[in-house]
């Protein structure tokens, strides 16, 4: 049984490596910048959703305020670069660390809340921070920050002529987020998180420090999301509060995981690959008059999923029940 488990872990890793390898080849065949742009966004949202999934999927603390960490990452990176000339690479790490710290400071009071109250707290805190940034003159207030374009360079992580560097960075980010999840899944933290999600009282009685588990999940989740935010700032090279901290980002991080399978290893990536291209394409085909059609698509998909596959799309690939798992009756009688 241990071997079967180890095999499954290894198989996940190999499949992921193959998929990443294949994804890396896609730009060789897809030269259209518009489609490349969609691919960058898809990979970015896969990474973000994977990170969101750590706190909300595995640990069960549903956050609808992760735009806060996305925005903090974007702002830290942009501000450090434009005000102090700090390279975005360090900016992204700094943004990650700041976000992790903020997540823990906020978690201290918020993790005492359970269920809906926690969700509402996350929304409210993100909205308050959005308002603060809209009025913070030094950080550009509502006008935002324009990142001055210089020569294309990996050093400053700026590329005006090609989307490819962004594509590969986003791919790397998605891989890192996936790998962190994979690694944590079979660790003390992974088990603690799932125990906390399923039944905090029972978890506590088995030596799980529930509060610390939530804090750990929040920190890891916020760090990774903020790195994604830093990347996004460089990618679009102009940010304002609404465009990096708006509520839609919180939703866009949650939806792929919900669609693909919340609290699963593959769910967020699968969800992002379906959801993001679909919405981007509907938005462009329907055109200017169709504002909001992408949201209708979201809504429709979520309704369809909750009716047909409440566990998310990954459940389509779920393992068949094992042959040696004896039927209930027999097990009772033995």
């Amino acid at each position, binding site marked *: *049984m*241990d071997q079967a*488990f180890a095999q499954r872990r290894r198989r996940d890793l190999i499949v992921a490596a193959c998929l990443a390898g294949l994804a890396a080849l896609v730009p060789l065949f897809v030269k259209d910048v518009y489609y490349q742009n969609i691919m960058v966004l898809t990979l970015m949202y896969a990474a973000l959703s994977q990170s969101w999934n750590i706190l909300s999927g595995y640990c069960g603390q549903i956050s609808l305020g992760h735009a806060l960490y996305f925005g903090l990452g974007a702002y830290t990176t942009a501000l450090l670069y434009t005000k102090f000339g700090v390279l975005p690479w360090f900016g992204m790490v700094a943004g990650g660390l700041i976000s992790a710290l903020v997540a823990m400071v906020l978690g201290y009071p918020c993790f005492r809340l359970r269920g809906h109250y926690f969700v509402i707290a996350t929304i409210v805190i993100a909205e308050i921070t959005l308002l603060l940034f809209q009025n913070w003159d030094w950080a550009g207030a509502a006008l935002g920050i324009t990142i001055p374009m210089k020569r294309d360079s990996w050093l400053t992580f700026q590329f005006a002529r090609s989307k490819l560097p962004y594509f590969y960075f986003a791919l790397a980010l998605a891989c890192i987020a996936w790998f962190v999840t994979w690694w944590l899944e*079979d*660790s*003390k933290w992974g*088990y*603690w998180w*799932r*125990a906390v*999600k*399923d*039944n905090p*009282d*029972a*978890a*506590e*009685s*088995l*030596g*799980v*420090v*529930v509060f610390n588990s939530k804090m750990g999940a929040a920190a890891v989740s916020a760090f990774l999301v903020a790195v994604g935010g830093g990347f996004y700032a460089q990618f679009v090279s102009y940010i304002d509060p609404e465009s990096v901290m708006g509520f839609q980002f919180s939703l866009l991080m949650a939806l792929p995981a919900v669609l693909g399978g919340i*609290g699963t290893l593959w769910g967020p990536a699968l969800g992002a690959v379906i959801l993001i291209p679909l919405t981007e394409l509907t938005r462009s085909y329907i055109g200017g008059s169709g504002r909001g059609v992408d949201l209708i698509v979201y809504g429709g998909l979520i309704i369809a999923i909750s009716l047909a596959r409440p566990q998310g799309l990954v459940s389509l690939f779920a393992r068949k*029940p*094992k042959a*040696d*798992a*004896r039927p*209930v009756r027999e*097990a*009772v009688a*033995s």
Partner: protein
Amino acid sequence: MTILLETRNVTQRFAGLVANSNVSISVQRGEIVGLIGPNGAGKSTLFNLIAGAFRPTEGTIVFDGEDVTALPAAERCQRGIGRTFQVVKSFESMTVIENVIVGALVRTTVMRDARRKAHQVLAFCGLDARADVLASDLVPSEKRRLEVARALATEPKLLLLDEVLTGLTPVESQKGVELVRRVRDTGVTVLMVEHVMEIVMPLVDRAIVLDLGKVLLEGKPADVVRDPKVITAYLGDRHAVGA
């Protein structure tokens, strides 16, 4: 024999209701002690106080020579108090083996060791064939055994069993009784709350009777069941006259 657990004058009030009043009990190492009493006697409250689900209003709880009154449940588990819940609290989205691994992780952070330990405990509890089944797919009697397995994986010195034998068929409860005996034989002290006297009395070395939040009586099971005070507590005055 030495004392493993002691409650000293423990009192617990819930908004005016006194659930435990001045309860002092002790449990020796290696014993199986039954905690019995009619509904509302305060058995579950006392259990929760010992396990650390909440802190007593007054009194102290000493475990293994240490005052643990202020320690949260997780730390008491680390000290060696394992428990089950009266209303089964499985991790429903996890498989049986994963449920048990959570418990095993108190003693090790090496996943391979935790997994091996979990398999051992499942075999001990007769659940190994169900290791890869989701906990939500277990039948009630299996869920009870999973609760025990999970607690055993934390390698407790004291195991608190909250009505694990209640509501089972005679065959199942007989197997439960055997399991509890085997647990004790591995050196674990057992304190169990039970409702069903005829199951628990042959099993325990000593019985403590709670009534209306107080210790009514303690002693050998055979003496306890014949005591008029106990019969009164369970059945009312009318029956005690005849006894």
